[in-house]
């Protein structure tokens, strides 16, 4: 339509037009909070290492005590990096699922990926072990690559299934229901395995299901980090489609979004992010549900160009802090990570939902 003159009147001078900026200040503040939490998580623990010493060690300098360098490099750095990656991955994945399904209760696990992972772990810990009890000790299994491999296989199997379905079904809601059903099926199999298993193995399985950032080694990080990197890049590439999907699939299609391709991409990256994290850290509850809500409330925006970086930074911060709380630096116990994320996450979601206006703003009612 070349013959139309897009002249606007001078009203704009009276009420200035809003700008859809990327809010760099807010995003940088979030990034700084993540860095702060990262240093804090390296500094606190059973042995307290001053933050300036942490920085010295990270920059390759000599610490006051040689043992500190070992603690940082062998234990705390891989754990902190895992927490950062996992927090970012789960939050972005949760955001994608909430937008794709237009459902505020969707989280990274709605597609059944974590159910697949838990089935894989259950089969290894509870099932295969039963045949040759003498060969594998339960404690050995836990620290072993086998567990991560089993979880990865389980997650990957469900991921493939979901991807095939994502390409074939008409409506995304169908995917949601299929994901739920996969969840029920796997939990049924897991409870059967639990029923016929022995106490030590059940305990090992439950320990895995509590979730932990601690068990990930440098070697495992070499798998986890690229997987999450690919997932996040894919998510960033799909930002524009996610924005169009805010209006629903019919509108998105009318705006030129190739729905099948966009859905395939979103499901692939969301499931990859959730699957990778679950495989190495266990099913981490609530982060993926709560962080997107928190970001929307903080930024008062549903624009994914803002929400994706925000979810990466806030998600990582939250995961680092939750891990810190679970370590309980002043006490000699370690709490289950899932208990902490739920204890922090549930009140956050309740608080966000109960705030007037945002309730309607965060999808309907």
């Amino acid at each position, binding site marked *: 339509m070349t013959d139309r003159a897009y002249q606007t009147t001078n009203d*704009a001078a009276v009420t200035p037009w809003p700008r*859809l900026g990327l809010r760099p200040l807010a995003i940088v503040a979030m990034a700084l909070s993540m860095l702060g939490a990262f240093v804090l998580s390296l500094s606190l623990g059973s042995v307290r290492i001053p933050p300036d010493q942490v920085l010295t060690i990270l920059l390759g300098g000599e610490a006051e005590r040689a043992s500190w360098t070992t603690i940082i490099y062998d234990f705390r750095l891989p754990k902190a990096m895992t927490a950062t990656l996992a927090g970012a991955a789960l939050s972005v994945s949760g955001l994608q699922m909430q937008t794709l399904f237009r459902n505020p209760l969707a989280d990274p696990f709605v597609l059944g990926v974590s159910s697949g992972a838990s089935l894989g772990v259950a089969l290894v810990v509870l099932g295969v072990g039963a045949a040759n009890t003498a060969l594998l000790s339960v404690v050995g299994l836990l620290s072993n690559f086998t567990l991560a491999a089993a979880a990865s296989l389980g997650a990957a199997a469900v991921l493939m299934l979901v991807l095939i379905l994502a390409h074939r079904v008409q409506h995304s809601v169908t995917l949601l229901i299929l994901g739920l059903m996969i969840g029920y099926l796997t939990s049924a199999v897991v409870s059967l395995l639990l029923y016929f298993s022995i106490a030590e193995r059940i305990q090992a399985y439950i320990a895995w299901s509590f979730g932990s950032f601690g068990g990930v080694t440098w070697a495992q990080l070499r798998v986890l980090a690229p997987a999450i990197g690919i997932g996040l890049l894919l998510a960033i590439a799909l930002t524009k489609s996610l924005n169009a999907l805010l*209006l629903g699939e019919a509108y998105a299609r009318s*705006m*030129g979004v190739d729905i099948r391709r966009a859905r395939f991409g979103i499901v692939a990256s969301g499931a990859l992010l959730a699957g990778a994290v679950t495989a190495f850290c266990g099913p981490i509850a609530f982060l993926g549900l709560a962080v997107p809500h928190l970001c929307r409330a903080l930024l008062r*925006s549903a624009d994914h160009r803002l929400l994706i970086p925000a979810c990466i930074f806030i998600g990582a911060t939250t995961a680092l802090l939750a891990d810190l709380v679970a370590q309980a630096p002043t006490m000699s116990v370690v709490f289950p990570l899932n208990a902490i994320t739920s204890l922090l996450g549930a009140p956050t979601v309740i608080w966000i939902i109960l705030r007037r206006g945002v309730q309607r*703003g965060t*999808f309907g009612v």
Partner: protein
Amino acid sequence: MTNVVLSAENLSIGYPARRRQCRVIAKDLQLHLRRGEVVCLLGPNGAGKSTLLRTLTGMQPPLAGRIWLDGQDLSAFNARELARRMSVVLTERVEVGPLTAYALVALGRHPYTDWTGRLRPHDEAIVRWALEAVHAAHLARRMVYELSDGERQRIMVARALAQEPLVMVLDEPTAFLDLPRRVEIMQLLRRLAREARQAIILSTHDLELALNMADVLWLLTADGTFYCGAPEDLVLKGVLETIFADTGMVFDRMRGQFRMHQTMRRRANLTGDGLAKIWTARALERAGWQVVELPPAEAHVTIIGDNHQPSWELSVNGAPKQQFTSLYAVVHWLQQQCQEEEQHERHARATDCA
């Protein structure tokens, strides 16, 4: 004729069903839409209005025939190229979360922006133009969930406009609005068609509004028959009367209105003139009295006084005259008289039997 932006040849719409059979909703449709035209698509629920709109917007393939948009076959467009020529407003109420009206309208630039979705100055200018075109510039900073239904619908029209479409398709855009808001949206669309030469197709149940504002009516009936033409042409041909014959609605060709169908058992002779006469006649018809100019009639109604302060003189079956100052009282009294009469009759019949 030039300026045809959308047309369809021998179009059949419907759904493919099982075993290679199809559920055909309508067939052999010939459609044309020109720039600056407003087409209203009318028809009872289930006649296939939405199916026709989905087919014309490429969301569903036709069973047969071809659709031409901007001189090319509709099925040849990819999603992005189609989105640059056609935009939609759907019936469903969208819930988008915390998004300002401005950001929502800016989503309409989707088929024009790069992969990051960044708005160039040209895009911003069009978003602002679209907001002003629907008189919603003052809503730009408001959150979409704070808007009333009417405001929200205007924003959705602005979003569709920002897509710079050749054809804008609206599926029952006034479905959940009250009457003033419906008129407002219809006027807005009429103005866009006239001033911006926008071609618009909208489906609606609002027959009288459609008759007043459409350039062309597309009428789909429940049995798949399709009528098309200017509203006035369709009225003169008697098409509207035919279509709504069995629905309990009567189309009054003289007045261009629909009325509820009622059996008129009694006649009232009405004398008077001007506005008061027209509205008195309506009140009497609503009460089930046929208005006649000349006797014989069961009731005689005379309007006395002028049109500003009328009063009414009534007599039924030659009984003494009564005066009333409102039509409500007139109707009430007439109905009372009828009921008394019926009771008498029933009583008389009962004694006869005894």
